[in-house]
Each structure stands twice: as structure tokens, then as C-alpha cells.
């Protein structure tokens, strides 16, 4: 079987067909390849791809071979103070398609621009000492399926985790994700949690179902059920700081769209008009400045 050429229109997807309108239809999964500063382009064949082999060739001890060492935290921009920075930021990355449509570009360009925006925000979080970044893309947005390109993240000592429903992904990709999670689990600069096919209501339901089974098996009584038991069963329990301090949603939509629900009980919400591909350092600084000015009382006294 001939190897696929490095055609940028091949996009990894759940369905075994490319997502971009100008690409030919194929029955086999194909791989989105983009070039980073440190990684080399990867070739894959049209047989069921063996990502793990490629991945192992390119990664040593959780770092891309030849990558630099992570730097210390940078000084913060004007108006921000380290003690009032959020430790966990969550982002709803909305607006890639609208961004592309507004420019008369194909939807795939919106996804590419969205990925660039994600990389920018990941870099900024690393520089400014944010410990956890959770990113959410809608289940209809296929661009954020963990891609081989996430390898670039390992340059910066980032731990990667996936939450949501990975069962619909191809087996090879599920194995790759597990491998990535395992390899990066000791990285400590930033914990990047990628929410794919994630439903806030389903997360609560599955946590409650796990607890209900414990009741059925006689390990606990119904009256022993409390908030911390439910917390431990939520998918977000993989992150040490599971509740975001700040949630940012782009594209001006003023709602949560079934993203985090339980976890957002006391989260500061920040809605920004610009679409995700346009979300950059100035917008992020603005969100962090607003966060700094919020008075978080948690229902109690004024400080």
C-alpha cells in the first residue's frame, strides 16, 4: 500500500473520511499533519495506521527528541499579580467555523486557526504559571481530536489528559491517547485537559451511578452520600485542581452548553466577543485582569 503524501487536506476524524470539502473521499482514517518548530513531518500509510510506533520513534522520556528544556515562569504582564492569578483556567473554544465563514474560507481553515490559537494559549499558560488548562470543543467540532501534532506540547513538560467519551474513537487512537497520558503523567509544568465529547450532565450522572453501585453492593448507605464522594467520581478528578477558577467562552455566546456544570459552582465566567481563532494574548490578559477584580465571597462575608 502506498504511503499517503503530506496533503494538508487530510484531517483526522472519527468518521473515516476527510472533513475538508476539497479532499477526496476515502474509507480509511487519515492523519492531519502540521509542521511545528521542533517536530518533523510524519508519514503514515493507508493501512490502519500504527500511531504508537511513529510516536515512540519521535518521543523519548516524554519529550520530543532534541527539544529544549522548559523555562522558568516569565514575569507577568502589566496589571496582573501572581497571587491573584487563576490556578485552573477552562476555555470553551467556540467560533472556528464562524471565523472561517466570515473570511470566505473553508471550514478547515477555521480549525487550523483554532489550533494555532490553542497553542498560543497553552504557551501563555506555561509562561504565566497557570497549573491546569481545560479546553472544550463541541462534539461536532472534529479538529480537536487528539492529533499526532500534540507531540509539540511535550517540549514544554506538559501533562495531557482526555476527559469525555473516547469510546467512539478508533481503537488505534484510543491506544495512542492512553499512551500519551501514561507517558506524560509525570510532567508538571502544565496539566492540559482536553474535553472531547464531554457532557457535564453525563459526568454527574456517571459519578452518581458509580456511587449507586457502591450503595447496591453495600459499601455505603444512601445517607453517607455527600458532595465529596461525588467529586471523587467525576471525570475531572484526574486533575489535582479540578474546579476551574476562570472559564472563558469565545464568540459572544452567553451559556455553558453542557460543559462543566458541577465544577463551575464558583467559577468566574468571562464571555468574550471574538471568535476562538482571534483569541490571543491581549484577550487573555483582559480576562485575567477581570478575574483579578472579581470579589469571590463563596456566599460568605465580604473579605
Amino acid at each position: 500500500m502506498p504511503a499517503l503524501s503530506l496533503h494538508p487536506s487530510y484531517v483526522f476524524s472519527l468518521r473515516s473520511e476527510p472533513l475538508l470539502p476539497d479532499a477526496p473521499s476515502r474509507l480509511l482514517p487519515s492523519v492531519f499533519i502540521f509542521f511545528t518548530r521542533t517536530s518533523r513531518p510524519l508519514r503514515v500509510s493507508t493501512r490502519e495506521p500504527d500511531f504508537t510506533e511513529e510516536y515512540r520513534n519521535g518521543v523519548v522520556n516524554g519529550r520530543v527528541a532534541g527539544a529544549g528544556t522548559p523555562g522558568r515562569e516569565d514575569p507577568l504582564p502589566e496589571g496582573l499579580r501572581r497571587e491573584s492569578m487563576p490556578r485552573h483556567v477552562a476555555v470553551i473554544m467556540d467560533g472556528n467555523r464562524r471565523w472561517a465563514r466570515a473570511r470566505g474560507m473553508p471550514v478547515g481553515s477555521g480549525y487550523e486557526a483554532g489550533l494555532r490559537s490553542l497553542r498560543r494559549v497553552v504557551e501563555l499558560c506555561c509562561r504565566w504559571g497557570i497549573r491546569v488548562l481545560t479546553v472544550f470543543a463541541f462534539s461536532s467540532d472534529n479538529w480537536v481530536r487528539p492529533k499526532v501534532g500534540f507531540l509539540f506540547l511535550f517540549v514544554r513538560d506538559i501533562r495531557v489528559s482526555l476527559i469525555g467519551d473516547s469510546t467512539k474513537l478508533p481503537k488505534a487512537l484510543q491506544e495512542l491517547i492512553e499512551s500519551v497520558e501514561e507517558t506524560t503523567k509525570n510532567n508538571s509544568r502544565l496539566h492540559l485537559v482536553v474535553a472531547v465529547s464531554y457532557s457535564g450532565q453525563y459526568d454527574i450522572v456517571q459519578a452518581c451511578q458509580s456511587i449507586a453501585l457502591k450503595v447496591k453492593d453495600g459499601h455505603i448507605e444512601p445517607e453517607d452520600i455527600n458532595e465529596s464522594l461525588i467529586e471523587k467520581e467525576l471525570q475531572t478528578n484526574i486533575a489535582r485542581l479540578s474546579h476551574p477558577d476562570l472559564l472563558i467562552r469565545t464568540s459572544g455566546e452567553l451559556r455553558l452548553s453542557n460543559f462543566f456544570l458541577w465544577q463551575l459552582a464558583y467559577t468566574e465566567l468571562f464571555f468574550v466577543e471574538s471568535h476562538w481563532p482571534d483569541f490571543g494574548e491581549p484577550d487573555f490578559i483582559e480576562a485575567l485582569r477581570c478575574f483579578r477584580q472579581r470579589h469571590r465571597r463563596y456566599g460568605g462575608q465580604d473579605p
Partner: protein
Amino acid sequence: MDKGSSSHETQRFGSFGSFLRRCIISILSTAPIPNHIAFIMDGNRRYCKRKNLMEGAGHRVGFLALMAMLRYCYELGVKCVTVYAFSIDNFKRRPEEVQSLMELMQEKIEGLIKEESIVNHYGIRVYFIGNLKLLSKPVRLAAEKAMVATASNSRAVLSICIAYTSTDEIVHAVQESCQEKWDEIRELNASGAGYGLIELDGNRREEGEHYIGVTDIEKHMYMAVVPDPDIIIRASGETRLSNFLLWQSAYCLLYSPSVLWPEIGFQHLVWAVLEFQRNYFYLKEKKKA
């Protein structure tokens, strides 16, 4: 004579305001009206400080603002209104403030069931939503009495969240679901019809074989008596939910005007409804999905 003419002026101004409001409502009514609006009444204490009022007076002024907003909502045709009156977290405040709030709530709850109150005027059924066992006895009794007294009203619904947090509501729903299932299985087994259901341990991924499911949990939520809110409005400019309706807010519009609660007015409600109407069809499709 001056006082008489100035009160006459106030009356005429009030009538004109009411007429203007009815005109705006009839324009808004040409598009879908939200079925359920929820309010987080934030900013009473800041209002009190800003106006140099006596401590606790901010909450009384806040109550007047609530009555006005209820009136506007029901005139607009909104069927359900929910308000976040007192969070379980608010018990952390100074005991004197908590006590004064409890007394205010008892006084106002008792006022609700009087003949001339807004509740009877608009035919509103009142629910008190939350962990009522945490309330002092007089407040709890007043709440239960009000729920019974308004049980036959059916034109609209007012849900007052008191001693409430969303996470507590979910915990309670899971406890009730587990208890209900446990009782069901014990009964079936006792009657010999259980076929050892207690030992059921099939493929747990199948919805039907889960011990509890989403419908069990939703059935036992305190808020199961009303549909999910279409809009949550939080006053005072703070943009967070503070553990209010987390489950129910999955697809709801969130609006946080920077006005303090005692100063909220009809114009803020109009803005929220216009925003809701702008997003109406998008939200409807999302809910179906």
C-alpha cells in the same frame, strides 16, 4: 395643596410608565417569550453601604425590587420565576445577619399568602426549594404553610430557593434515587418476584441495567416541579453561578447586568428577553441534540 398635586403628578407618571411598559410588552410578545426566568438577587449589601442605610435595610429594598420584577415577569407572560433567596453558603455569614435575614424571610413569606398579595393577584403557586430542614422552625413552618395555601393556584409558579445549593440538590437527588431503588428491590425480593435482582450485575454500560439513571436523578431534584430556566439573570455584575441551578443551566442564557439588585428595573428584563429571542432557535436545536 402642594403635597396633593405632587402625589397626583406621581400617579400620572406612574400610569404613563405602566402604559409604556404595556406597549413594550406587546411588542416583545410578537416573538417567543421565555417560559422560565431565574434571578440571583446579588448586591443588597453593597447597595446598603453605597446609600449609607442601616444594616439589613438593603435586603428590604431588595425585596421591593423582587416584587417589581415579579410583576413585570408575570405581565410579560413568563410562567415560572425562580429566585435565589438564601444559599446554604450564606449560613457562613455573621449570625446577626443570618438571623435578621431569617426574620425578614419569615415576615415576607407570611405576607405572600395574604389576600392582597401579588401571589393571589396573579394566581401564583409558590414552592420553597432547598434543604428546608436547615431552616429554623418558624421559617420552615411559614414556608410549608405558604406552599399549601397556594397549591391550587395554577396561572404561574414562583420557586424560592432557600437553604439551597445545586450540589446539595444533586446529592439529595442521588440519595433519594438510591433509597427508592433499594426499597423497590427489597420489596420485590420479599414478594418473591425479584428473581434475585439484588444480584444483577450485567453489562453496566447498558442504560437499562444501571442501578440509577438520569431520569431517576432528575425526578428527585428539588427543581423537578418546574422546567429548566431559559434565562438566569444575576445582578451586580458578578458573572458566576454561585452554586445555583448548575444542572438546570446546561443550555440556559446567562445575563449579568452590572446593576445592584435593588436598582434592577424593567429595562434589564427587556434586554434579557431580547437576547433570549435572538438566540431562541439556536437554543431550541441544541436542547434537542
